[in-house]
């Protein structure tokens, strides 16, 4: 059984003029110690997907359907009290902006001890020892000193290390990291990603990494989901998708990267931009931007088809696979 299994998750936002569907039929699973990447552009719903796992979506958002099974128990149906035992304890989160997550008026030590005492019945002294141990694990120079410092005394990279240390405090099963390095410089980003990856491997923690950076996904994760307009359009092993993307959107996303283009030549570009939730196109939401779109694409959302180990929601890919099958049959 998978550690976390999300089945047919629907998330909506109740706003004036009716509900907006932010997530539609999201299904995926995460095994123990596995690293999963969630990729997409702004507005694709990747952060909503991450937040809804711990039911952290604020009003007017709500989970409209589906299940989030963590060790067999449905988080979507849990009471707030039960959920609090899981949040930060079994499933930890790392957010994009470390300055927003750390309380500016409390020392690092106070914040860390507070988090431990919320879940464990131990003395403050023991809690402080755990905090110190985690700060050492994230390789912060002079960790004893840091415990008594305030967040503003640390640099951006250092703060994100503290956040990772806090996420590790209670030996979680899963860490959900929402764009953890987007606010940082490239060299610092590389160090933080390296650290996160090593820690997840050492402690056998599953990682759900939300990012828009395909390079990072390729370096860190084993499997990936590509999201577009609230749906998963492609999912499978990271290497397979990066090397041979099936969905036209994923292909476009990869080919649009400057590192894929000939230096000085025009870049591949996907026309248009991601639709807003207020007017999601009918059928496959990508069809207005897709070069392969047919009448069929405008009618209904395509089902997932398998291509190797990758699941893709695209009629064009389905047709290609169908053709290949027929050709093979004809040959034999």
């Amino acid at each position, binding site marked *: 059984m998978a550690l976390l299994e999300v089945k047919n998750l629907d998330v909506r936002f109740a706003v004036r003029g009716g509900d907006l569907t932010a997530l539609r039929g999201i299904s995926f699973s995460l095994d123990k110690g596995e690293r999963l990447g969630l990729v997409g552009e702004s507005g694709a719903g990747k952060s909503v997907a991450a937040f809804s796992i711990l039911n952290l979506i604020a009003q007017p958002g709500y989970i409209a359907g589906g299940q989030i099974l963590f060790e067999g128990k449905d988080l979507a149906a849990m009471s707030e009290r039960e959920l609090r035992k899981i949040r930060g304890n079994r499933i930890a989160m790392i957010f994009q902006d470390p300055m927003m997550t750390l309380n500016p008026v409390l020392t690092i030590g106070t914040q860390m001890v507070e988090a431990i005492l919320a879940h464990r019945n131990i003395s403050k002294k023991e809690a402080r020892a755990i905090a110190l141990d985690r700060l050492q694990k994230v390789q912060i120079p002079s960790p004893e000193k840091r415990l008594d410092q305030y967040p503003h005394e640390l640099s951006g990279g250092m703060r994100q290390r503290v956040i990772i240390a806090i996420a590790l405090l209670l030996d979680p099963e899963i860490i959900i990291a929402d764009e953890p390095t987007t606010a940082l410089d490239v060299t610092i980003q590389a160090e933080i990603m390296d650290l996160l990856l090593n820690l997840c491997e050492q402690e056998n923690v599953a990682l759900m990494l939300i990012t828009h950076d395909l390079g990072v996904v390729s*370096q860190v994760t084993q499997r990936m989901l590509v999201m577009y307009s609230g749906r998963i359009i492609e999912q499978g092993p990271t290497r397979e998708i990066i090397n041979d993307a099936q969905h036209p959107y994923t292909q476009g996303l990869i080919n649009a990267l400057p590192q894929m283009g000939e230096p000085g030549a025009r870049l591949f570009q996907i026309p248009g931009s991601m639709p807003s939730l207020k007017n999601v196109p009918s059928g496959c939401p990508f069809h207005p931007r897709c070069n392969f779109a047919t009448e069929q694409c405008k009618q209904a959302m395509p089902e997932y088809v398998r291509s190797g180990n990758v699941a893709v929601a695209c009629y064009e890919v389905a047709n290609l696979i169908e053709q290949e099958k027929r050709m093979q049959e004809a040959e034999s």
Partner: protein
Amino acid sequence: MTSPLVSIRALEKRFDLSGSLLEQITFEGGRFRRKQEAVHAINGVDLEVQKGEALCVVGESGCGKSTVARTVMGLLSPSAGEIHYGGQRIDNLDGKAALLYRRKMQMIFQNPYASLNPRMTIQQTLEEPIRFHHPDWSPTQVRDKIHEVMHSVGIDPDWGSRFGHEFSGGQRQRIAIARALAVDPEFIVADEPISALDVSIQAQVLNLLMDAQESRGLTYLFITHDLAVVEHFGTRVAVMYLGRVCELADTKNLFATPRHPYTQALLSAIPKLEDDRPNHIRLKGEVPTPVNLPSGCVFHGRCPYANERCRQEVPQLIVTDGGTQVACHAVEERRL
């Protein structure tokens, strides 16, 4: 070689942190003392931008790359050094005399959500610079020009009566580009023009900038932290660290054979699609604050090759065999 379009000479820029005279005075050990502090944003930068090229300036936050852009544009005045445009010194010109250069030099900013006036329609936004620089143009001429630039950036000219908030980020950046192109500039300073945009939109805007360069013969000073973009877009690259240029090279050379240890680390830190694991050169520590600059080479605290000379003496840019200019003692001494 022909004379450069823009040349930046021994540029320095400090931002005073200490406030007024009264705020500077502190009482220490029974005596009054005057304490002055400044952020040393740029510490002696020499750059030349040749006509028709795209010179990229890269570096991490706080390295002074945006300050260079703003100083060149005259949005900030240099603490020392000179800016020349087409052979004429422009950093000391007053309003009237500077006007001509303001038309020839235009700027594109990072955040298209902040750089468009929310209370102006697109028509008004584009009209303003044209009317300002060409007061003698007839309304028809102005309208034709607006149509032309809107068309060239891929924004439907019929949308002129809309406001900035009605557009997406990518479209806004197109409008900001149209505004820069409206007065037929020769030289465009683009400060992180695609950093706030999504990947698929980045490609669109980058293509647009390259098309404009080709069709209008533009020269760019392109500021960015994204090295992958530089490899694609730049003719030459200047890598900055703590207010100094540490390497200046043709794009191809820089990516094929980076010489400066900082450039090497920076290049290795780009997450590449073919990587299965992060494999970057690990640097010690973090970027020091530009308030108290390190002595000698500004990079010595993090450099694996630093020796006593690096701690004492500031390295100057030297030309290497490949034509790359590097400011590094280790490269000069052939230790690297």
